[in-house]
């Protein structure tokens, strides 16, 4: 009997599903090797089907997306019970991802912006979506919207992580291959190379031995050299703090690494590591001067914690 595999998505954009489709011809091999018992985007299995399965009967559940609503939390718990192995797929499941930036605010702040302050929204009566709504005696419900976005492992026990926004099809294929061969590494591992992106970077030969940035530039302010190390051009490339395995796709697009692959195994707090890597590149030993140089970075919290605010030491803004 082929091993059973489930795919599920929570607060996500669908980019991780597209990464699966990007296996292109290779997806037929995956379909041949495993028995997919849940893939809401593609197949006909329902929550009741999953509930009816024996606990532990699914070999592996691949779950992408952050946890933003009560419905997503329920699905995460359900799949944890049914699956022997849970793999968090993509930056949102691993670290909260870009939707995790909502932890700078809360439910009330999001609702206020979307349903009240939006310049195109006409809502004099202050209507907001309700978890239970009655209209002419008809009752309809919506899931609860939480104050705080969480990564998957903050809600359930997670066995492995596949990083990236989105992950590369190759990393997904490698994970499935390792699963089928019974060659998954120790629990808790991130299934990608454990070194900084700079080591893999096609421009690494142009990275100076010691970076000395006297002024940080924003990408729209300069014409970006297509060959030279981006940090050496004064741009805020997060390659030194970020795990490799992405194929340097953003660098190939002549733009900076923004950190979607998260940290290596030796780092606890991605944003703290990124900040220290960048701060140490400031070309000064004078504290005031260093502060002046770093002040040119317009949004440090949102930049260094772009994908990882919910799993950072900060977790969220206190409101």
């Amino acid at each position, binding site marked *: 009997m082929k091993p059973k595999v489930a795919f599920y998505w929570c607060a996500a954009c669908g980019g991780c599903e597209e990464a699966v*489709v990007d296996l292109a011809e290779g997806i037929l091999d995956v379909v041949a090797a495993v028995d997919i018992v849940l893939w809401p*985007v593609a197949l006909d299995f329902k929550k009741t089907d999953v509930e009816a399965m024996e606990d532990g009967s699914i070999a592996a559940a691949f779950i992408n997306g952050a946890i933003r609503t009560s419905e997503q939390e329920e699905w995460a718990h359900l799949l944890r019970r049914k699956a022997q192995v849970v793999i968090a797929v993509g930056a949102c499941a691993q670290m909260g991802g870009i939707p995790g930036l909502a932890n700078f605010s809360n439910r009330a702040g999001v609702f206020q912006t979307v349903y009240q302050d939006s310049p195109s929204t006409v809502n004099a009566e202050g209507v907001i979506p309700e978890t239970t709504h009655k209209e002419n005696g*008809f009752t309809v419900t919506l899931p609860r919207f939480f104050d705080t976005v969480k990564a998957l492992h903050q809600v359930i026990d997670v066995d492995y992580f596949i990083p990236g926004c989105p992950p590369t099809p190759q990393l997904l294929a490698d994970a499935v291959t390792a699963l089928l061969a019974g060659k998954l590494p120790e629990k808790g591992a991130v299934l990608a190379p454990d070194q900084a992106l700079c080591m893999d970077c096609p421009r690494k030969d142009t990275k100076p031995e010691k970076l000395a940035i006297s002024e940080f530039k924003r990408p729209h302010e300069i014409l970006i050299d297509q060959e030279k190390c981006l940090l050496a051009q004064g741009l805020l490339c997060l390659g030194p703090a970020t795990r490799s395995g992405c194929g340097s796709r953003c660098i190939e697009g002549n733009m900076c690494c923004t950190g979607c692959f998260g940290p290596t195994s030796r780092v606890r707090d991605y944003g703290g590591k990124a900040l220290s890597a960048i701060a140490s590149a400031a070309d000064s030993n004078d504290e005031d001067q260093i502060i002046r140089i770093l002040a040119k970075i317009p949004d440090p919290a949102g930049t260094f914690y772009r994908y990882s605010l919910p799993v950072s030491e900060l977790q969220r803004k206190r409101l």
Partner: protein
Amino acid sequence: MPESTSTRRITIDPITRLEGHGKIDIFLDDAGQVERAFFQVPELRGFEKFAQGRPAEDMPQITSRICGVCPTAHHMAATKALDNLYKVTPTPAGRKIRELVYSTFMAEDHALHFYFLGGPDFVVGPTAPAAERNVLGVIAKVGVEVGKKVIAMRRRLRELTSLAAGKAGHPVFGLPGGVAKRLTAADQVRFQTVAAEAVEFAQFTLGVFDDIVLKNSDYVNLILADFFTHRTHYMGLVDDKNQVNFYDGSLRVVSPEGAETVKFAPEKYLDYIAEHVEPWSYMKFCYLKSPGWKGFTEGAESGVYSVAPMARLNVADRMATPLAQQAYGKYIATLGKPVHHTLANHWARVIELLYAAERMQELANDPEIIDPNVRTIPTAVPTEGVGVVEAPRGTLIHHYQTDERGLITKANLIVATQNNAARIAMSVEKAAKGVLSGKQISEGLLNMVEMAFRAYDPCLGCATHSLPGSMPLEVRLRNRNGETLSTLRRP
């Protein structure tokens, strides 16, 4: 209409080809007549809120995460909003590279919907066994070679987007005044080669549609069925000759009779479009400020309008490329104009696929596409900017306000499917009433309700159109205490 003891509730949950989840609640009276149907979107992520405080130049990459299936649309709308914010005009090469990538993306996206998602209802058949009503069924019908051709075409188009934009999934190349990366002569050859293949592929696809759908009177009758028809306003981008344009132009609105009611610069959208909030869905419902929100109703007096392929073809006078124009002529000759039949979106989408491929070819052959001058550095102090594109599923508007450092103070986003939200909700209710009322509910009838919104390629999840497979559906009949009386499941 209180929910009496005999009121039956039918819950369709989850509708899994939507991002997160879509849900439909249908209420029937004791005579089995549908009284009310709710089409709900139980998800929200709040990008407008957490955009605040971020550097404007990061918005193309942040907002692409709204949708991993049409990230290029958000990336491009955001990039154009940056042009407007910094009052900078892209260099000719920068602008052309953007539109080349955008055309490549549109071709990929439309082809995927036809073969993998929307198409199976027609190619395999609306009443075919559910297990076959998916991309594998399509391949069985059109042949394995064609299936491989579809997969390979999508892969090649996405490889080109990655080449120019960094990543097909969440591009990085957009900056105010142009793009981050120039194209080489070798890159141009690759674009030319794939563009020629894409034009051929689009013509082939139009042939498939012709053979399988238009030559089958049952399908044509289905397209024309009253319960799949709404007479509403339509909106879409047109160029200065009133031709369909995905990348730029003016927003044109036509009435249910097909007359232009207004044409406006996208920066003026707040004068013409507003959003309505309902307490039973996280998604807001767009409407035209004139006539205003009159509820979920159709006709010239209602503010409800529609976007996406059928709407774009309704608002335009013609297509800008020769082969697409030819196909457009046949479409109008067959269905009239404006077209109100929701399922005609499938046909319109294939015509747009051909246009996207032809436009891609024009730009790939443009000598200026390899000009190294791909960006103008902005110098203005930023305050406010609006950017618009036609996403695969309709008009997409990004609107930012910033402080003098270019940090976002306010962001407003109107995404494609919000424009269609009211019409989709109406379509689901009308199909439910027309199809289910007084009937013994069967799996086949469920698919008819499903087809009512599938035609829009709803972008509640733009994610919906990314993968093969039929939409799983489960209908539970419950009494008012919520106890399940019976369950129908499409396997």
